[in-house]
């Protein structure tokens, strides 16, 4: 069953909860190693200013180019859930993955090797999903089987359509 993330930019406010929940869950005490990051953008000038925040990590691509170029064959896609994992033993620190990754996901850590999001695969207790999606206070980040993510995405799109339609009677006297 393929698994992955779904990110809804319309619900992201750039609060960084996902970034730090990831560090806590994966014990990344070093501030510079970010398996998940939030990038913020600003557009326009007064009175039409808008901001967009994007939360990014490894996307667990169907055809991960990082794995293709890795000379040490350290990166592999798991057959059972399509999660892309890295085996540090075989990583030689060449940064080829960083060069080709379209999402800037690979992190070259202090040990000189590449580390990245592992979808919080080892879970205990009530850890039903990756820490980032669990923490997100505003429903911007989801994780799970791709079929479920598609449903969430569809529902979100439908909701946005509904919100864009102004039903009569809400504003103004009936």
């Amino acid at each position, binding site marked *: 069953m393929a698994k992955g993330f779904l990110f809804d930019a319309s619900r992201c406010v750039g609060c960084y909860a996902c*970034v730090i929940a990831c560090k*806590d869950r994966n014990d990344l005490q070093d501030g510079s190693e970010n398996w998940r990051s939030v990038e913020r953008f*600003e557009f326009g000038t*007064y009175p039409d200013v808008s901001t967009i925040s994007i939360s990014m990590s490894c996307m667990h691509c169907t055809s991960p180019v990082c794995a293709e170029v890795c000379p040490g064959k350290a990166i592999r896609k798991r057959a059972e859930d399509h999660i892309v994992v890295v085996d540090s033993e075989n990583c030689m620190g060449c940064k080829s993955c960083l060069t080709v990754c379209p999402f800037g996901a690979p992190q070259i850590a202090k040990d000189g090797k590449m580390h990245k999001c592992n979808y919080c695969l080892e879970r205990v207790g*009530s850890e039903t999903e990756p820490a980032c999606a669990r923490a997100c*206070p505003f429903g911007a980040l989801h994780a799970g089987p791709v079929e479920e993510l598609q449903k969430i995405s569809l529902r979100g799109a439908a909701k946005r359509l509904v919100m864009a339609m102004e039903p009569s009677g809400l504003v103004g006297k009936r």
Partner: protein
Amino acid sequence: MEIKKTICGICTASTHCGINAYVENGTIVRVEGMKEHPSNEGTLCVKGASSRQYVYNRDRIKYPMKRRGERGSGQWERISWGEALDTVAESLIRIKETFGPESVVFLAGYTKWLRPYLQRLAHAFGSPNFCSETGLCYSATVVASELNYGSTFPPDIGNTRCILSWSVNPFFSNIRLARRILSAKERRAKIVAVDPRVTPLTERADLHLQLRPGTDGALALGIMHVLFRENLYDARFVEEWTSGFDELKEYVQQFDPEHVEKITWVPARKVEEAARMLGEIKPACIVQSASSTVHHTNGVQNHRAITLLSGLTGNFDVKGGNWVQPETYLYTFSSAPTNEKKIRLVDRLPDLPPRIGQDKVPLWCQLHSEAQSVLIPFQIKSGKPYPLKGFIGMGANYRMWPGSDFMKEAMKELDLLVFSDFFMTDTCQMGDVVLPAATSFERSEMKHWSDRYIMLTKPVIEPVGESWSDIRIIFELAGKLGLNDQFWNGDYEAAMNEMMAPSGYTVAELETFPSGTFIKNPVIPDFKKYEKEGFQTPSKKVEISSSLLKGCGFDPLPVYREPKYSPISTPELAKDYPLILTTGSRLPMFLHSEMYNVPWCRSLRPYSMVDMNPSDARERKINQDDWVYLETKRNRIRVRANLTETVLKGVTHMVHGDKEADVNLLIEPDYLDPISGFPGFKSLLCEVRKISTMP
């Protein structure tokens, strides 16, 4: 690995989140939000997610310590708890005998849970001077509401169809509130957001009124002008239940939308649109900020004008409007009544000497049962009306004060400085005795939530170092002061049972719900209670014209006055300092002076930065990340420039509490609202100058 239930206690008492702490060999190895907890439903904010680096922070105070050598020299001697408490108690008794108990100040900052018991200690000791950060947060909004209505009134967001949010950005300060606003929006409620900045809330609003900082009152009066002109107000409510309406109507004549646009910079069209939404969509509620609107030199009056909009539009004490509910415990409306007031010994205040501030802000003191902490340094310096000699600060930080250096210098004049805290802050560094406090993970704490939820936590780990729960510190100090009989003979469980007696809960029962529980017999108030009881004001009506303000020599109407310093009120000053400085809004990763020492949080914002509009920056040849001086006529700080369109041209914004660049050095200690004593943090004048050569 064990999963233990607790709460995050980092932010304010009304918003804390439920936490699952994963504990291995007595150490927290990770945290996650508690799914079954109604406050956060499994989620966390960035601060709560950082809990481990907060609890196991290298700045934690591990042992009680006393000063060796000069104050502030950084030389400390580890002592036992027994010696620490004996030293403090002996000093307190000596001060009491020489100068009277009122010369000791008991101040509670963060965390807030200890407040009822610290106030009890102060009053039992004989000092009226229990005070807290409410000297400059929240209480002035309560005072403003009470002057109008005789009560406070939280918004009924769950049932509303229109939200007027006024200078609040809960996405960064209060995820519980933000999630409820998002839910309301999904139910198609409309949002009108007033804020001088672009924030996640204003971006999600149907209408954003981006006003010049400090002009909130003029904007509210402008909305009233349109409500009256277009007959959109609740004439029956006004007729039956208000006093002073005709004077108000007369007064707001001048606040036509075009004039209001000149004052506030909000386009007249938007003022009209806001008034129509508020007048036409029922029910509508006002989501108030705890402090933004009252951090102005005209703060209380501005806030009165804002909250009057509720009554004028027929949204007071109705379902989906603002609903009058009794505060039950620590700023929450949990529907489980408690004995908090009784335990705080508030009823002893009339028999004690006057509180700090009672001479300067008598009305605030009449409506709020604490001393006015903002005025402490003035009384230390003047010795009037009586000298202050001792200071017991729990979670206190001098950087809270306007003109923070003024408070710091004043504190040094005291004979006794005792601080309990989690971290060795630079405030603690000034102390004579420093005591280590335990975090929410290391203590047992009773908490209420306005979701009608209650929880009694158990420690999930042993205390870090020799730290103690704040309550234990208070109870044991009370014992050393001979006040055991007033502190349940040291039995905290007995205290909690007394606290909860009106709800029928006991500690034994609460302990059976490790994740907390919904209140079993909630006391849910009716709507429109005023129809039976009238309003809790002197006239029993909504006092648009306030008899209490009039009695104190203030204007009884919610009049608008310019900030003491503004381009309009002080044009000469504005020549040298042409930019408006508004301070103290939140970033997600910091909270007041907290979290700067947490590496995870600091890594998200490694530098102190002032937000300024790119066009203002261009005029000054300032680029993104350039080092600049942020300067007022009082002082200057060195920060980096953050160029952003989220602030208006002509406006700058800087967070507070950052010891690397303390923006409270820039405001004068007496730049205050005369009614409340609240500092005008959010409307100052400044200039930003590029530093061409770095020292």
